[in-house]
């Protein structure tokens, strides 16, 4: 075995030497360092030579990490391009199941064809989006991103004139505030699917939100470790409910539906997320909180058409309608009146900015 390793090492050395001597260094920019060759005259917030465009002639594509039927992250992006297609008569183009290692290839294909707006849906594609945005300055790149409430995300954003990091912020605060009112036992739980920016951003705001309406409640946030195993999610949520938690919410694509079922089965409150999920568990889902990507991307789309494009962090706060709340679906009759009033009140105040800058 030692001999084997020794031979292996020797062969690798030879190849390493040949490889380095034999060819030019790779033309991949070192992502950790800011690009020095950036043109001086373009600053964040401007775009070079802005011609107005006819919205119906614009070409838009959404590049997704999963399938458009995942009841969550990817589906909401599909809804966004569909919305654009219905309103402006453009083609609703999307590509599914793109592996991280393939994203660069997809982006390149659409950038070569001078697409006006390329939505790269997910922070795991950050490196590819940044690299290719520099290479293709004529296309506008939107990287769907998760922003934490503490603004620590700002350090991660690179200043590239045709790349925007787009997303709502403070959804977690809104969810937390509602959960704080709903609870009778003073125990609420929010379960994320995985520790990734598009979920961590919500988790980061839950506690702050609950504190706006409830000073005593125990707030637990944790992760399920799955986005597809709804059965496991259901049992995990049931375990929390059995421990006295009486308000459940989750962000885990399909798996989160399991949490809603658990709440219905056990007779506690739940909040839907990502879509109006009242229909999933009508006896549990009081309200649903939704990322308003359709409106957000319509806004970005129009900003390109009207050449008002902004690069860098393009954050939609509650005030900017980045997040929306569903209809009551009759729950305002079923809940105690003081809770309904309190929830309506806190939602209004949050959107107006009365409780702080959300």
């Amino acid at each position, binding site marked *: 075995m030692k001999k084997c390793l020794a031979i292996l090492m020797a062969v690798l050395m030879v190849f390493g030497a040949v490889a380095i001597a034999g060819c030019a260094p790779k033309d991949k920019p070192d992502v950790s360092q800011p690009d020095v060759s950036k043109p001086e005259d373009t600053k964040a917030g401007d775009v070079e030579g802005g011609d107005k465009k006819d919205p119906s002639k614009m070409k838009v594509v959404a590049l997704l990490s*999963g*399938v*458009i*039927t*995942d*009841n969550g992250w990817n*589906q909401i992006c*599909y*809804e966004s391009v569909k919305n654009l297609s219905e309103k402006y008569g453009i083609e609703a183009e999307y590509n599914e199941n793109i592996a991280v290692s393939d994203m660069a290839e997809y982006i390149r294909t659409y950038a070569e064809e001078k697409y006006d707006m390329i939505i790269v849906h997910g922070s795991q594609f950050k490196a590819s989006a940044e690299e290719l945005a520099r290479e293709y300055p004529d296309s506008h790149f939107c990287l769907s991103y998760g922003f934490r409430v503490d603004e620590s995300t700002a350090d991660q954003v690179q200043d590239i004139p045709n790349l925007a990091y787009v997303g709502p912020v403070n959804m977690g605060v809104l969810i937390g505030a509602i959960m704080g009112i709903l609870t009778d036992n003073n125990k609420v739980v929010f379960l994320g699917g995985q*520790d990734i920016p598009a979920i961590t951003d919500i988790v980061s705001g839950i506690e702050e939100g609950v504190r706006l309406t409830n000073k005593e409640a125990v707030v*637990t946030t*944790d*992760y*399920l*470790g*799955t986005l*597809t*195993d*709804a*059965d*496991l999610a*259901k*049992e*995990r949520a*049931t*375990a*929390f409910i*059995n*421990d006295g938690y009486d308000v459940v919410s989750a962000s885990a694509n*399909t798996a989160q*539906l*399991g949490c809603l*079922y658990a709440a219905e089965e056990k007779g506690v409150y739940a909040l839907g997320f990502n*879509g*109006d*999920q009242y*229909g*999933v568990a009508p006896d549990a889902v009081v309200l649903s909180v939704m990322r308003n990507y359709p409106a957000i991307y319509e806004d970005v789309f129009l900003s390109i058409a009207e050449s008002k494009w902004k690069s860098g962090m393009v954050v939609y706060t509650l005030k900017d309608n980045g997040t929306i709340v569903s209809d009551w679906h009759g729950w305002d009759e079923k809940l105690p009146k003081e809770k309904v009033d309190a929830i309506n009140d806190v939602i209004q105040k949050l959107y107006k900015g009365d409780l702080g800058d959300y």
Partner: protein
Amino acid sequence: MDLLQTIGGYLFTDIRMAAPVLLAGLGLLLMNWSGLLNIGAEGIMLIAALAAVAGSHFFGSVWMGLLLAMLAGAVFGLLFAVLTVTLRANQTVVGAALNILGLSLSTTLNRVFFGIETTVTKVDAYKVLEIPLLSKIPVIGRAFFAQMPIVYIAFILVPVIHYFLFKTKPGLNLRSVGENPRVADTLGINVYRTQYLATIVGSMIIAAGGAFLSTGLLNFFAEDMVAGRGYIALAAVIFGKYRPTGIMVAAMIFMAGNVVSNVLQVAGVGIPYTFLTMIPYVLTIIALTIFASRAVAPASLGKPYKRG
């Protein structure tokens, strides 16, 4: 909460979660005893989970869903049998391809059947069937006697399959095919027909496990919802020493891993969730290392048989 009641609750969860794995394990067992090693249970369960929702949706009854799921399972089983029995192809490779096919085909057909909707298509699902009196037994009553019908079916299949395998003539024939097909052949047993039957019936039982996931525990189909249970069932068969009762115990122990991670997370002990995710799998490996050496597989498991 009362401690005994809590334990009863864990048991209830454990039994419910074990049912799909148990069904898949029993299906695999029939195939294994006929000498066929099928790692494609995951794929069969996935296509069955979709077929169950489709059947329940289009015919309005969850039992029609089960029927359609078992039909889909039978088709996959037939495909496996043609390739591995008649053509004597490598069973692991065919099984792996079944997994790929199950995942991709269920995703594709899901869209063909249900389109792309934000609202989840809800279908008729199993209701809890409480057995009078028995379900009132303290602690274990609810766990054992307030489950869905298909859970009872899964557990009733354990003695049924045990009786079939070890107490009946066809069961003996099946096992002799798995032990030594050549001898079985000379004794006048039709080896190929036995293997075909075992594969098709076995796949149908596996499919029932998949159907339970989509129309029992939940009532919709989602991509990749089986999440590794087909593989856990494979391990349960070995851990259960190729006996139905053993598989039952194994399925309950492996799924108890999930109960443990639930308890740990609720208790807030601060273990990263990624490690909690590993628990059922680590438990499976440990169980295999301790018990595998004592499990005696059918002697001709995985070896293609060539007549004459």
